[in-house]
């Protein structure tokens, strides 16, 4: 792991009028590190994710990202063109609902290849070869490359979305409830796949989830949010095995045991 963080978040707040989305969030994220943000619906975790991923402008505070040239840039002082370029090259965003992150009416191959074409790849054969390779890595058979995601199951769609995001070798990936709405067996496969990809590629990731089992399996570090505030942070297993904050204890004690 590098000694310089990839992302520096300082005093980040988002207000919706007088309501708090998230308030005074600060943390740093290092390359290769997976951070889980947990909390129940309305805790502000999705607001935070959107503020980090430049999908929602924060009210105050800053988010600095270390570009590939080593320079830190404040995301909200960049031009929109730069931000969007970052989003589709150095970053990925995996939506809970794959339909939000995929083009449902173009083929799987084109879904994966789109980012390559967006950064100027103009060789059909190479784009297709890369797409085939990535479909394999997310365990989608090569002969499905010309099928539209409409014809895919929920789990396959989610894996396709992951391939689409990772094809440009991003360094940071945001995930919003990546296993939400999937069957348990499908979840397990996806989690295993994500775990493998994240460690093989040395990806940094911020995963928003309400599922503590997902957080335990994927993340190194955890932030617990309640009412827009971070109530506890720490090593994932420490937070789950020895929760300190009253709310975290409530969350952990609410897990159903199988």
């Amino acid at each position, binding site marked *: 792991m590098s000694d310089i963080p990839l992302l520096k978040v300082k005093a980040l707040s988002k207000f919706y009028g007088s309501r708090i989305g998230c308030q005074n969030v600060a943390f740093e994220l290092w390359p290769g*590190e997976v951070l889980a943000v947990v909390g129940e619906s309305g805790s502000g975790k999705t607001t935070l994710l959107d503020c980090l991923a430049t999908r929602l402008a924060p009210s105050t505070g800053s988010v600095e990202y270390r570009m590939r040239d080593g320079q830190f840039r404040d995301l909200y002082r960049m031009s929109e063109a730069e931000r969007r370029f970052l989003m589709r090259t150095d970053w990925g965003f995996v939506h809970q609902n794959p339909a939000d992150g995929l083009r449902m009416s173009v083929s799987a191959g084109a879904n994966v290849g789109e980012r390559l074409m967006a950064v100027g790849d103009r060789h059909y054969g190479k784009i297709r070869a890369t797409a085939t390779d990535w479909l394999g890595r997310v365990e989608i058979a090569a002969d499905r490359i010309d099928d539209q995601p409409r014809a895919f199951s929920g789990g396959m769609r989610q894996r396709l979305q992951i391939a689409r995001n990772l094809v440009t070798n991003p360094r940071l990936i945001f995930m919003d409830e990546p296993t939400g709405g999937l069957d348990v067996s499908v979840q397990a496969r996806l989690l295993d796949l994500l775990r493998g990809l994240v*460690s093989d590629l040395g990806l940094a990731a911020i995963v928003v989830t309400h599922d503590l089992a997902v957080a335990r399996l994927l993340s190194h570090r955890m932030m617990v949010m309640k009412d827009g505030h971070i109530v506890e942070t720490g090593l994932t297993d420490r937070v789950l095995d020895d929760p*300190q904050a009253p709310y975290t204890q409530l969350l952990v004690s609410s897990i159903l045991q199988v």
Partner: protein
Amino acid sequence: MPTPLVVSDVAKSFTMHLRDGIRLPVVANVSFSIKAGECAVLGGPSGAGKSSILKMVYGNYAVDRGQIIVPYRDRLVDVAAADPRTMLGIRRDMIGYVSQFLRTVPRVSALDVVAEPLIARGVDRKDARDKAGSLLAGLNLPERLWSLPPATFSGGEQQRVNIARGFITDHPILLLDEPTASLDAKNRDVVVSMIQQKKDTGVAMLGIFHDQDVREAVADRIVDVTAFSVPNGVAA
């Protein structure tokens, strides 16, 4: 070389916020150290706080007070106060842990579960799997199980996977939480000799062993946890 592990004046209690904030003291004034090549065994009855001490050393439990000093990257780090990133580095490079129960990951084979800590330290995948295989073979885990996820294994089989995973690296500190609890006599002997080998290479070990034979075979010293117990309800 500095002493691998120094525990000094450590205290631990649980505050149960869901039960009107009552505090359950576990241990206090925990102080001991372990030299390289030494195996210290925590002694005392169930509930005395032996596991809690192991978990604090591993950073798995928060520490109320005191210091747990471990050398890490040419400096001394207090595990009790280390940030998560430092703690992850310490776990990768300094402290190994064999827990009582295996936390299995869906779809990951026994062989890969064992090899993972080596791969995380940058060892080539094939080499790591070779080493994992030889450890599992030494622990008499049938080869036909290696490619299966351990979730469906018996307690003894899971424990052997867990031991192999803990012993595969050359961490200078190794924490052992009842590694032989579900093993038969033959495999207990294997573990005893594995611990002996670790000692010979200078690994500092801290363990919990309920099995008296094993304890006597491996322990250089017993750290009596009852000495750190707190009278109920008056934890400082």
